């Protein structure tokens, strides 16, 4: 039965292909349409297919046939196109694929940057050549050159709009846990009391229009019963939101869980995870991110926003042929999209660009730098015009203070850096251990229950403490805030000096002794610190969208604020001591606890992610104060040094390693003295390398060779005796071509010869026609000799983005090194399990 359907489908597919070729403008794009209907084409999100097909149809209408007479070549038996443009017999226009599916990659494979880049160069050269011939072609070349910027504009607009939506919805949903607005259910607490004059100086957001759940249900707003009702409702909503988040992720897009940055890093280095940046992932990640953030779990929206922006970029890439067809070009766009993500998450466009450069990107040419700059600008502008917080700022915790700091204060800043580094190292170790537990034990079989338990625990423990009850960004904003006369929060509960009214007209205040309110706040903060540190470890990595920036910043901000208040009190009571004498006399405002919170936040974030430059720029863009760059730099650098002493990898690299992704770390150095011959396959005991000969093998032989092995590529040699290298053929291309030839080309049977040479060798007269496959062969594979030191080979792999490299000895083919071999070798050298590298 199954066979019948397959054959019917095959026949139908062939029919349709022939039909479409007949209908189409002869000579152009006959391949690409078929390609979209191939069962295993290269769309990241296969649902896009329908749109893609229509897209291709319409695009062919606009563009005139660029070359006439290709049609005959194309349909004839002599398909000859140099893969790298190096073949002298290039007849087919590189704008079209010689065959559908050739040159694409399978899921969980690594792309070959060299091949992709040379493909794009060929394409570009062709367009430039054509553009001299006619005006339409010239226009086409202009639009082609312009498409990159247009794409950036669209990415910026889309991600900016999505980020605005996420901000507004998350803010509202977070407040829904506490109550509802009667003026219109869509208003959050602050906007509900927008013009209300019932608010008081102490309780700024209190107005009759906003009703807590206790007031709505029982009618009472005070008393233990109301507290219990509110508590229960808080837990209920937290559970509800997290349940919805995890169930939606599970049902529609499992790839939407987690932070996404480790995977994006890997994808940018050339890995392929189909569907990871697809439409459904985008929708589900956007929707569930809001749910997860507002459920009160200890997670942030920054990392997932990077993923969301990359999804936008990938989806929009489908609109442009240039980016749809070329994996390397698409990765340039994704690099820029990562910048957009951070730009909208922190309202820091330049910080976003630097983040992309320092943390996520693998290949970042200057062109990408300018494009990310532009895209980040557009996104920040879009977000600003949406104005999600109603304060004309892009982030909730924007701060603005300009009190100067003194050189002596560098000591506590460095102390904060040490704390951040220790916390970062500890967090990475603990989180990785927990995630490994989840990966290997039965804990991983209950993702929904896990999320629910953690959410219940978080809600239960965080409600009684007002500093954990509020959302992460609100907490950070409160901690960053400087206590002026205008503030009435508990954190500013200093004892009022008697002569308040006679202090200066500006609202900054001199250092004051702590009052009972502040002491309460301090121990609450201390409890919140312990709680956040614990809960973040088990929260990050759960199967809901979860970012790490906000929780680690919150931890740092709490620690910094505590230290800041401590310093302030120390200065107040010891203003005559040696340390404080010169600069902090009585009645002066010399220590700003908010600045300490900021430095602490930067230090902790730096310890966890090991960012330096981008982090300082992000923090500086958040505050808008140039004078705090030095404290931030000192703290970040210290935290990186301290954290690096305990383990060299940041949280994202650690997660990449945990999952065994094929990621060749550009920061790490290879310092062993091994040679290429030690790493290459086959090893000494193994059977010889599976090779194809350039002539003399039949289709049947080739097929059985491919079937009997699982390698993803085969070197082509002159003959099996001489082992002289000709080129390299990928398994996927080979299979697709043979399959296609059997269906479409007459006379191709198992006995037909497979020919990789330029000219067909003389065949006996009764032999079936040969199958010419030179067009799918890579004529310029990279080779090294067997005595090349591995550090050079690793460098070649890293810098050129190679996927495999052939090893020769005296000009004879000896073996092959793939990226996976290198990673395994490196794992072995570092005393790790080499089998942890799972993918090609």
């Amino acid at each position, binding site marked *: 039965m199954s066979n019948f359907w397959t054959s019917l489908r095959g026949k139908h597919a062939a029919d349709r292909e022939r039909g479409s070729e007949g209908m189409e403008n002869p000579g152009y794009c006959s391949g690409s349409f078929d390609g979209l209907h191939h069962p295993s084409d290269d769309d990241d999100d296969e649902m896009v297919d329908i749109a893609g097909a229509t897209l291709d149809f319409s695009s062919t209408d606009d563009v005139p046939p660029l070359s006439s007479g290709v049609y005959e070549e194309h349909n004839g038996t002599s398909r000859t196109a140099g893969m790298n443009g190096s073949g002298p017999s290039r007849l087919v226009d590189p704008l079209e694929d010689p065959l559908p599916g050739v040159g694409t990659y399978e899921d969980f494979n690594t792309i070959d940057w060299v091949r992709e880049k040379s493909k794009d160069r060929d394409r570009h050269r062709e367009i430039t050549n054509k553009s001299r011939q006619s005006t339409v072609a010239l226009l086409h070349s202009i639009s082609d050159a312009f498409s990159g910027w247009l794409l950036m504009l669209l990415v910026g607009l889309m991600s900016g709009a999505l980020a605005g939506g996420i901000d507004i919805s998350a803010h509202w949903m977070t407040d829904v846990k506490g109550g509802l607005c009667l003026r219109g259910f869509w208003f959050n607490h602050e906007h509900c009391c927008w013009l209300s004059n019932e608010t008081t100086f102490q309780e700024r957001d209190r107005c009759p229009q906003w009703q807590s759940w206790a007031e709505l249900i029982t009618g009472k707003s005070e008393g233990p019963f109301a507290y219990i009702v509110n508590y229960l409702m808080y837990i209920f909503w937290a559970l509800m939101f997290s349940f919805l988040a995890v169930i939606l992720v599970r*049902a529609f897009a499992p790839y939407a*869980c987690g932070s996404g940055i480790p995977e994006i890093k890997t994808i940018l280095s050339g890995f392929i995870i189909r569907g990871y940046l697809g439409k459904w992932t985008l929708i589900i990640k956007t929707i569930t991110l809001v749910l997860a953030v507002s459920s009160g779990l200890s997670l942030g929206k920054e990392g997932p926003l990077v993923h969301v922006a990359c999804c936008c970029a990938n989806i929009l890439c489908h609109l442009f042929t240039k980016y749809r067809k070329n994996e390397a070009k698409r990765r340039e766009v994704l690099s820029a999209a990562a910048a957009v993500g951070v730009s909208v998450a922190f309202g820091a466009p330049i910080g976003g660009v630097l983040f992309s450069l320092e943390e996520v990107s693998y290949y970042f040419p200057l062109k990408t730098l300018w494009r990310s700059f532009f895209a980040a600008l557009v996104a920040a502008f879009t977000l600003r015009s949406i104005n999600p917080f*109603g304060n004309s700022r892009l982030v909730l915790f924007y701060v603005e203070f300009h009190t100067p700091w003194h050189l002596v204060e560098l000591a506590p800043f460095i102390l904060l850096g040490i704390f951040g580094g220790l916390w970062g190292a500890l967090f990475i170790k603990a989180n990785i251990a927990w995630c490994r537990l989840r990966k290997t034990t039965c804990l*991983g079989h209950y993702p929904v229950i896990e999320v629910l338990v953690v959410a219940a625990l978080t809600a239960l423990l965080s409600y009684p403490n007002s500093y954990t009850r509020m959302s992460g960004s609100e907490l950070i904003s409160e901690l960053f805030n400087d206590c*002026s006369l205008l503030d009435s929060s508990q954190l500013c509960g200093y004892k009022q000096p008697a002569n308040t009214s006679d202090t200066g*007209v500006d609202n900054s205040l001199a250092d004051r002794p702590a009052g009972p309110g502040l002491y309460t706040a301090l121990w609450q903060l201390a409890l919140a610190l312990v709680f956040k540190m614990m809960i973040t470890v088990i929260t990050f990595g759960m199967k809901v969208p979860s970012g790490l920036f906000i929780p680690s910043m919150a931890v740092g901000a709490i620690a910094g604020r505590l230290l800041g208040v401590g310093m302030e009190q120390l200065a107040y009571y010891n203003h005559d001591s040696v340390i404080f004498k010169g600069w902090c006399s009585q009645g002066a405002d010399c220590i700003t606890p908010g600045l300490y919170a900021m430095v602490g936040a930067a230090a902790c974030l730096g310890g966890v992610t090991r960012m330096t430059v981008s982090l300082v720029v992000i923090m500086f863009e958040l505050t808008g104060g140039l004078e705090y760059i030095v404290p931030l730099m000192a703290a970040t650098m210290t935290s990186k040094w301290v954290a690096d002493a305990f383990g060299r990898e940041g949280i994202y690299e650690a997660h990449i390693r945990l999952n065994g992704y094929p990621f060749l770390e550009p920061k790490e150095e290879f310092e062993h003295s091994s040679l290429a011959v030690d790493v290459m396959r086959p090893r000494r005991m193994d059977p010889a390398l599976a090779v194809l000969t350039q002539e003399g093998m039949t289709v049947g032989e080739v097929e059985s060779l491919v079937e009997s092995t699982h390698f993803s590529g085969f070197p082509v040699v002159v003959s099996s005796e001489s082992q002289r290298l000709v080129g390299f053929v990928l398994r996927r291309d080979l299979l697709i071509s043979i399959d296609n030839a059997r269906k479409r080309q007459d006379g191709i049977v198992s006995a037909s010869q497979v020919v990789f040479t330029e000219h067909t060798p003389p065949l006996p007269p009764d032999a079936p026609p040969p199958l010419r496959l030179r067009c799918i062969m890579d004529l310029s594979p990279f080779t090294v000799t067997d005595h090349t030191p591995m550090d050079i080979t690793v460098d070649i792999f890293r810098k050129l983005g190679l996927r495999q490299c052939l090893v020769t000895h005296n000009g004879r083919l000896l073996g092959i090194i793939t990226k996976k071999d290198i990673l395994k070798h490196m794992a072995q050298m570092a005393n790790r399990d080499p089998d942890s590298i799972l993918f090609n």
Partner: protein
Amino acid sequence: MKWVFFIEALFLACFVLLSQVTAKNSEDIRCKCICPPYREVEGQIYKQNVSLKDCNCLHVVDPMPVDGKDVEAYCLRCECKYEERSSGTIKFTIIMYLSILGLLLLYMVYLTLLEPMLKRRLFGHSQLIQSDDEVGDQQPFANAHNVLSRSHSRSNVLNKVEHAQQRWRRQVQEQRKSVFDRHVVLS
């Protein structure tokens, strides 16, 4: 290329629609003055619906809690901020978000509960089991239809949609397997 223009037009339309929805509501501006405690006067927050040029203490603080000679001193301490929001955008976003969430939940319920039931009623048990066997293959009915009624453009579109849906569901299943069961990626 047409598609690009189409998308652009869509963006433009969205933008126009949004600006229609978010047309300035008179309630959407405020001037918020925070006045700290001053002598025996308590700290107070004043909010007024005034334009940017009137956003200062003298216009907003009403009634003035201090006498004429102290007004200047009092007002110097107050901090007035002009703030704008767009209640239309907020309303649009929240309602849109909730409706998408609702649709997704409905679709999820449909896929997990209703569809298997409907299928069972339509095709009977045997068909269901068979199509389960052929998970690796295309969905049989879609293809039969496809071959038989290729001239029928409408059913063709429907088939394409169903075909795409099947493929998508298989993909999600695959993802679920690798993320939740085998823990190969994203753990």
